[in-house]
């Protein structure tokens, strides 16, 4: 922690993941699916980076790559300046103590046949962090921090409500005192009235522990609430990244803008009947040509967009946008930009 800008907690450098198309004996060989295509960004210590995208944009694959659940085709993930994909088996456990994950569906991500207390204790056991009575005490402490009653620890996951289950999952992730937490849609499976509890809890824990979050969601509202910076992903690539409020106020990539217009805002006074609608649907990631991947749906697309891949460019100081015509992207309609 020297003076000046701190070293990022997490760096993604040109990360790429291709899934080979299954080649059958009588089928033609098809191009591999580029699920994650040359993704680079960083997350500062204590910062939340929100990652937004629609289904199939590759955001969950990205999480799996960071968590070493699959190997990248090329590029790398760096934590503390150390490449994650080349870690020796003996170093993986140490890595797991630095980076943890919260999963989308607390109904499926907790083993139904293991008691809540044992689930929270498991990381302590695996990493040899506490033994015997100390472990039990630590489990109670963690439970307390996430707002679970110590008396409930002997129960099985299905005896908890969705929100409580996600608290168990958070306690489990925090057991090893990680510095980085990847949260993949942590509230989208929860009831609306319970989401705020979990989001606030995550914010509080971040403030207490100086955690870095990579917060992945399809819901821009949720992302905006928790994030200092936002990255927008489309078909495997980051199209725009920058400070949350700036990106949401004045999106520079046409996809970001149209996505923001598409989000229904929870107040009838702001309903915008005459908005510009994002046309068509997300095409398959197998058909990406060397061009702007958003061009087929983009209202601003010109010939250039169909033949040349837009490289990310710095705009407004701290914004990166992958669009040839980022400067020309119109502002959001009045009501929305607020």
């Amino acid at each position, binding site marked *: 922690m020297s003076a000046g800008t701190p070293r990022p907690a997490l760096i993604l450098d040109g990360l790429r993941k291709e899934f080979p198309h299954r080649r059958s004996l009588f089928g033609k060989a098809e191009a591999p699916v580029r699920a994650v295509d040359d993704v680079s960004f960083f997350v500062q210590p204590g910062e939340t980076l929100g990652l937004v995208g*629609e*289904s199939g944009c590759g955001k969950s694959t990205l999480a799996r790559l960071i968590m070493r659940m699959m190997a990248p085709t090329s590029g790398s993930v760096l934590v503390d300046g150390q490449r994650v994909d080349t870690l020796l088996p003996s170093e993986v456990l140490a890595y797991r103590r630095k980076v943890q994950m919260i999963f989308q569906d607390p109904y499926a991500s907790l083993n139904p046949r293991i008691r809540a207390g044992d689930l929270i204790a498991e990381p302590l056991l695996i990493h040899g962090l506490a033994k015997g009575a100390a472990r039990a005490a630590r489990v109670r402490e963690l439970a307390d921090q996430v707002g679970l009653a110590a008396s409930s620890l002997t129960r099985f996951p299905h005896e908890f*409500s*969705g*929100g*409580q289950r996600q608290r168990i999952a958070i306690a489990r992730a925090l057991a090893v005192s990680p510095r980085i937490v990847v949260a993949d849609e942590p509230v989208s499976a929860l*009831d*609306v*009235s*319970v*989401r*705020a*509890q979990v*989001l*606030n809890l995550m*914010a509080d824990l971040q403030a207490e522990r100086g955690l870095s979050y990579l917060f992945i969601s*399809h819901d*821009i*509202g*949720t992302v*905006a*609430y928790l994030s200092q910076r936002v990255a927008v992903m489309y078909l495997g690539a980051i199209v725009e990244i920058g400070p949350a*409020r700036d990106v*949401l*106020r004045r999106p520079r990539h046409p996809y970001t803008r*149209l*996505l*923001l*217009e*598409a*989000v*229904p*805002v*929870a*107040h*009838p*006074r*702001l*309903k915008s*009947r005459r*908005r510009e*609608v*994002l046309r068509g*649907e*997300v095409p398959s990631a197998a058909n990406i040509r060397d061009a702007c991947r958003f061009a087929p749906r983009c209202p601003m697309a010109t010939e250039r967009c169909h033949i040349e891949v837009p490289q990310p460019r710095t705009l407004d100081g701290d914004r990166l946008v992958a669009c040839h015509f980022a400067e020309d992207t119109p502002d959001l309609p009045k*009501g*929305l*930009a*607020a």
Partner: protein
Amino acid sequence: MPVATDLLDIQDLTVTFGGGSSRVTALHGVSFDLRKGETLALVGESGSGKSLTALSIMGLLPPEGHVAGGRVMLGSEDLLTQSRRDLVRTRGSRVSMVFQEPMTSLNPVLTVGRQLTEGLEFHRGATRAAAKARALDLLKLVGLTQPERRMRQYPHQLSGGMRQRVMIAMALACEPDLIIADEPTTALDVSIQAQIIDLMLDIKERLGTAILLITHDLGVVAEMADRIAVLYAGHVIEIAESLTLFDTPRHPYTEGLLAAVPRLDVLVAGTTARVRLAELPGSVPSPADRTNGCPFTPRCPIATARCAAEMPPMTPLDAAHSVACWERAP
């Protein structure tokens, strides 16, 4: 009081599940009305009974469910006491339904055309050719390109958004007075969701069809609804015009729910670093949790002893706004 323009008037609808000791009341005397050409949103979380209300209107409750009381008046007929034959005639022709999952709600082994025309042939006695012509019009109406080709395709050949358009076309086939849309956009991506919302708004404007919108998503409600009924644990707890409900919610649950949703516009406009979301404590009760009082009591910031003992009735605050709360409408 049912007014002349009332299309649907639901009174005291009560639905139970199971029998014997495991009998559970899922809807506790739900009442609301819906006027011609109006969009009413039924808003609620899991277990609130919003989908059950829809299925009860359609007579499509699962076998374990029983309507234990109440009336569902469509015009002058009570759908609950209709004969089986009349019910079948009402469904799909006067009231139709759009479901949540366009992936599984279309028959995988029948062509789109067949699924579109069969209702017309049955309800309107249309010939194959006439039904086909009408189906083509419907596909154009819901904004599908190449309608002739779509007619011959099977659902698996269409994308999610296209399937939901087909579902809407099917619902419109017999020009119903009312469409019940059960989470019509929940399974869709944001951009497709916006397209479907626009389509439904457009249809409502052009055809004057009333919509009963069922959803948990306040954003979708804000975009589409004229009036809103909030359900909690099988009770309607507040009804108001859309703007009124969002601006001056009266029930503590409605208040809490609205405050708990991160609002993009507020977040972007905000000047402070981070607005803390208001929290509703606790979790949604299960229908098996029985109480004689208000089911929101354990989570309610203003609950009193009376709330735990007795369920407050729906009380009008003004002509268009009613709430069920001892503290707010004594």
